[in-house]
Structure formats: structure tokens, C-alpha cells
């Protein structure tokens, strides 16, 4: 086996999703350094029925993680609308009482609340804040003492390195899972079609607005609200209807096409060493809505991959492709600029 130069690889934190206490324990057992989760309401960006934590569950989960040497990050990363800021303040208060290790926020008002009320609390800037330039990140560091920024999935590794050199905080990047085509925190497509806001209600493409319509020949049309997102011939596997992964007609083009992106998952496994060399401190896996089995498989695979790279071994990476959406993967914007 070929040995690699590992002298400049620093050990990154593996940040894993948990939609339930069971998933959190699974992620910790599978080797997560940090697990992120949210409360059962609009204060987090995965506000799905049957998902997320009560206050008691969070307290117990934090204790479990701490006992096993892992940390818990609370996602309070939606935007508090109008005068409804109480719910977000409550989530912060509760999370800190449960002794979470960091809170992840996007809303400037919520960030200000944490920074003034709990100045010692470690604060992470959510991808939902859409901070994609050194100046924007420095702004959040200066105003609120942000310690880590989760970068939008829109930069190449080279650009991430450049950002790293210009900011005073840690960088976290998504390495695996669902890939949204739009800048996070800046998308109202779901609201336009369903009346539910991703930014303030915490849901993208809500299941109760999704319809599957089958015709006499068993062709399947997937819809969000009143809008057709895609059509599938009988026997084809139909993807979940998300506006930015649908097919459309554009004026001046005679074919139906994926106007934004094909349904694919992000998989940056092969870029891991480059990301580590670029100074990325935390590698994030998407998927709080996923099953325990998925969390177990993905977290342990990445744990092994990261440890292999650190030890100078070439890791086995093929198993992760089986877990990607429709078994199709992409490096998204991270690989090369031409993706844009």
C-alpha cells in the first residue's frame, strides 16, 4: 500500500446528524466527534414531523455524548419572524441549560441574543446565514464572537483555502448527503409553491404538500403543491419532488431539462485530504432526517476514511456511493469552478 505524506494533515472533527436520541447515540458509537440536532419546532431547519428532540431528550443525549467523549451542537438555525422571537430565545436558553457544547445560529437577532446573554457560550454560524466571503464571516466574528462558520456548498476547495487564510474562526464544510442547489437561507421556492417558509418554518419541500400522481400506464408525476416537479416512466424510480431538482421547459429550448441540477448527493470522500490541507476543522455529514442505519453506515465509513488518511493509508471509499441519492453522486461546487 502506498504511504502518503501526512505531516500537514490536522485531525478534523467529524460532525454528524441526529434526528432522534437513538440516532445521536448511534452516531456517537460510530465515531462522531460532534453531533448536531435540534428541538421539535420551527427553530431548526429540519422541522419534520416525528423528528428532533424534547428538552429532556436533549439533556440525556448531551450526557451520553459527554460520557463518550463527543460533543453536541444545537441547531437553532432558522429565522425568527416578526415579534415571535420568544421561541428562539427559549430554544437557546433550553439548549444551554442542557449543556450543549455549541449553538448554531443564522439569524442576526438570535446571534446577538446568545452573544449578550451567554457571552461564554460557543457560537457557530450556520450555513443558513449564507456567509460565503471573508468579509461576511469576519463581520459575524466581530459582532458576535463566532468561533466556527459552516460554509455554503458553493465554494471550490481552493476558494475554501483562500477564505481560511483570511478569517479568524474555524471552518466546517459539508462532505456528504443531500445537496441543495440554492444558497442556504436564501431560498423561498418552497414557500412560493406551498405557503411554508424554509427560513422561518424550517422545512424544504414539506411531505404533506407532496403528491404522486399515477396515470393509466403507470407513469408517475411528482408534484409539490400545484406544480409538477418531474415525471417518471413506469418502472423508473421516482425521486422526492424538490423544486431545485425538477425538470422544466425553458423558453427557447425544446427539451425538458434539469434547469438547476439533477437529483444527486454530495460526496466529497476523495477530496478529504485536500479539505484537511485547506485548513478545514470540521467535516459535516447532512441527514438529520435519515434512519439510524444510515447514520451508522455513513458515520462509521467516514470515521474510517478520515482515520485512514491521517494514518497515511488509502481508504476504501466505494461503500458510500450505495448510500447516495439514486446512487448518483457529485462533488458539487467543491471540485471545480465549471460546475457553476
Amino acid at each position, binding site marked *: 500500500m502506498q504511504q502518503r505524506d501526512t505531516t500537514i494533515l490536522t485531525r478534523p472533527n467529524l460532525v454528524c446528524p441526529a434526528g432522534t436520541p437513538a440516532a445521536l447515540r448511534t452516531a456517537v458509537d460510530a465515531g462522531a466527534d460532534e453531533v448536531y440536532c435540534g428541538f421539535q419546532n420551527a427553530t431548526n431547519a429540519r422541522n419534520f414531523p416525528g423528528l428532533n428532540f424534547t428538552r429532556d431528550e436533549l439533556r440525556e443525549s448531551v450526557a451520553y455524548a459527554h460520557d463518550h467523549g463527543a460533543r453536541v451542537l444545537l441547531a437553532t438555525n432558522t*429565522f*425568527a*419572524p*416578526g*415579534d*415571535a*422571537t420568544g421561541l428562539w430565545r427559549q430554544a437557546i436558553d433550553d439548549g444551554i441549560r442542557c449543556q450543549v457544547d455549541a449553538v448554531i445560529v443564522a*439569524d*442576526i*437577532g*438570535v446571534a*446577538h441574543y446568545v452573544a449578550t446573554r451567554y457571552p461564554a457560550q460557543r457560537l457557530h454560524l450556520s450555513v443558513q446565514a*449564507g456567509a*460565503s*466571503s*471573508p*468579509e*461576511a464571516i*469576519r*463581520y*459575524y466574528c*466581530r459582532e458576535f464572537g463566532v468561533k466556527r462558520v459552516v460554509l*455554503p456548498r*458553493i465554494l471550490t476547495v481552493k*476558494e475554501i483555502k*483562500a477564505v481560511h487564510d483570511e478569517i479568524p474562526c474555524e471552518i466546517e464544510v459539508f462532505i456528504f448527503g443531500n445537496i441543495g442547489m*440554492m*444558497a442556504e*437561507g*436564501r*431560498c*423561498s*421556492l418552497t*414557500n*412560493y*409553491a406551498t*405557503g411554508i417558509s424554509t*427560513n*422561518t418554518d424550517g422545512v424544504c419541500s414539506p411531505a404533506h404538500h407532496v403528491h404522486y400522481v399515477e396515470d393509466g400506464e403507470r407513469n408517475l*408525476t411528482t408534484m409539490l403543491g*400545484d*406544480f409538477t*416537479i418531474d*415525471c417518471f416512466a413506469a418502472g423508473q424510480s421516482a425521486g422526492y419532488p424538490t*423544486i*431545485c431538482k425538477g425538470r*422544466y*421547459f*425553458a*423558453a*427557447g*429550448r425544446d427539451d425538458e*431539462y434539469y*434547469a*438547476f*441540477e439533477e437529483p444527486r448527493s454530495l460526496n466529497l470522500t476523495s477530496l478529504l485530504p485536500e479539505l484537511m490541507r485547506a485548513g478545514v476543522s470540521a467535516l459535516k455529514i447532512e441527514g438529520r432526517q435519515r434512519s439510524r442505519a444510515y447514520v451508522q453506515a455513513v458515520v462509521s465509513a467516514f470515521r474510517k476514511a478520515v482515520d485512514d488518511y491521517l494514518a497515511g493509508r488509502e481508504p476504501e471509499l466505494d461503500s458510500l456511493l450505495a448510500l447516495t441519492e439514486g446512487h448518483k453522486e457529485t462533488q458539487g*461546487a467543491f471540485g471545480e*469552478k465549471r*460546475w*457553476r
Partner: protein
Amino acid sequence: MRAKLTIGPNLFHWPAEEKRDFYFQIADEAPVDTVYVGEVVCAKRTPYFEPYYDEVAERLKRGGKEVIFSTLAEVMIRRDSASVAALCALPDAMIEANDASALWYLSGRPHAIGALMNVYGEDTLSFLAGKGARNFALPAEISAATIRALAAKGGELGVGIEVTVYGRVSLALSSRCYHARAHRRTKDDCGYVCELDRDGLELRTLQGKPFLAVNGIQTLSHGCTNLLREIPELRAMGVTGYRLSPHSKDMVAIARLFRAVLDDALSPLDAAPRLAALGPSMPFVNGFYHHVEGYRWVEA
């Protein structure tokens, strides 16, 4: 307080002379108080119109309009950062921030907050007002109840609250250029194909239903916001500014209609059919305001 009528930043890549002439006409003929100038969607477009900034700003000021420069909404690479830095360095200019990059420069001195900044709640509004924000153009997707709360807070703090009452809605930003993609190109090699569509490139569903409009990295609604009939309610809430987002329509005539309604010289019901006659190619929508699907039209 007299309601301000404003012309928001032009979201589209019109040929530079055409854009210049648009602003000249607004300067000379439109009954508006404030005009926002500047490229907010794509920094690659900036070199085309930037040479006209001085001329346009001068003409607008001569026409009695306040000029505010609006910054790029998505700042990713050095070219983008440079564009924001340059605007924020303009001497004696009022700048509208559409991204936290601009706040890095503007915080601590008087500035404005653009509709592409996420100001949803009163805590955010209060914080930014405390750092020098004097006017807030609210995000497009918020409902009447949220506008009411923010307008009340704005009144308390003595800052302006502006609502977009006309134009296609900005629904999303991306790093990828969908105009280029529609033409089988990439962003770096785009050939400026966005110039072909004065109001965006229409996307239809597979069943032929108009849905969205592509404008470079931005995705807009197919429907066009029209809050003409909601103006009395907005005024009662204390909303101070009424923004028209430019389209390739007769914006002077559209501004005159809204001005007449704001001045109580014309009832919203009488103005509505006249507005429809000026912009027939896009259906009107007001769903976000009424807290339903954004594409819907709710009879007031």
C-alpha cells in the same frame, strides 16, 4: 409622514445604454422619491453599467431623487468582494447592504438594508438599527403579520420600513448560473446570455404551466407582486417606503399609478385595472402577503 415611493435595484442585465436611458427617464419623469442603483445579482455584469453610475446618479439627483447604491447579494470570490468594497468606499454615498460583506464595511455609519438581507424579526431589526441602518427593505416572502410587527418596531426606532409592492419576486440565489445552464454554458463562459431576457427566462413545468423565471444565479417567481390594494393596510401599519422592482414595462406609468394611490388621489380599486393594462404578460400575485402560497392571487 409622506409615503416614499422607490425604484428598487434593477435585477436584470439590460444593455448598458438601455439601462442608462431607463434611469434617465425615471429621473426626468417618474414621481418617485428614491432610486436604488447598482448590480445586485452578478458581479460579472458590473463593468458594463458601472461607467454610467456618475451620469445616472447626477441625473437622478437633478430630478429630485435620492440615490442609494445597492450591493451584490451573493459575495463569493474576490471579484465579488471587490465590487462590494468599491461601493462601500464611495464618498458621501448612501449604501444598501444585501449581504453581510457590506455590513463589514457599513456597520457604525448610516446605511440601508436591502430586501435580500434576512431581516425577519424585530431583534435583527433592532440590532442593525443600532449599528446605523436607517432603512429596511423587507424580504419578499414575509406576511402581513410579520410586516406589521417590523413596521411597529421600525416606528419605535425611527427607521424606515420598505415593502416591495411591484415586480417579480426574488425566490433564490445560487452559485450556479442557470441562464448559462439553459444555454448549455457555464458561469465562467456565460457569454452574457442573461442579456437576452429583459424580465428573466421563463421556466414552465412539464405540463406547460409557467412557474419560475431565471435571472442568472437568481431564480424569480413567474408571477409579479402587486400590492396595490394592500396599500391602505400597509400605510396603517406604518410602512414608510413602497418599492417598485424594475421591469421592461412602462415604469413611469406604473410609478404614477402607485403615487396616485399613495396620495389618495386614486382608489386602489380604480388603479388595479390600469396596472393590469400596463403589465399583461405576467400574472399578478400577492400570496406571500396573505400568508398562503406565494404564487396565489388573493382577492383583497
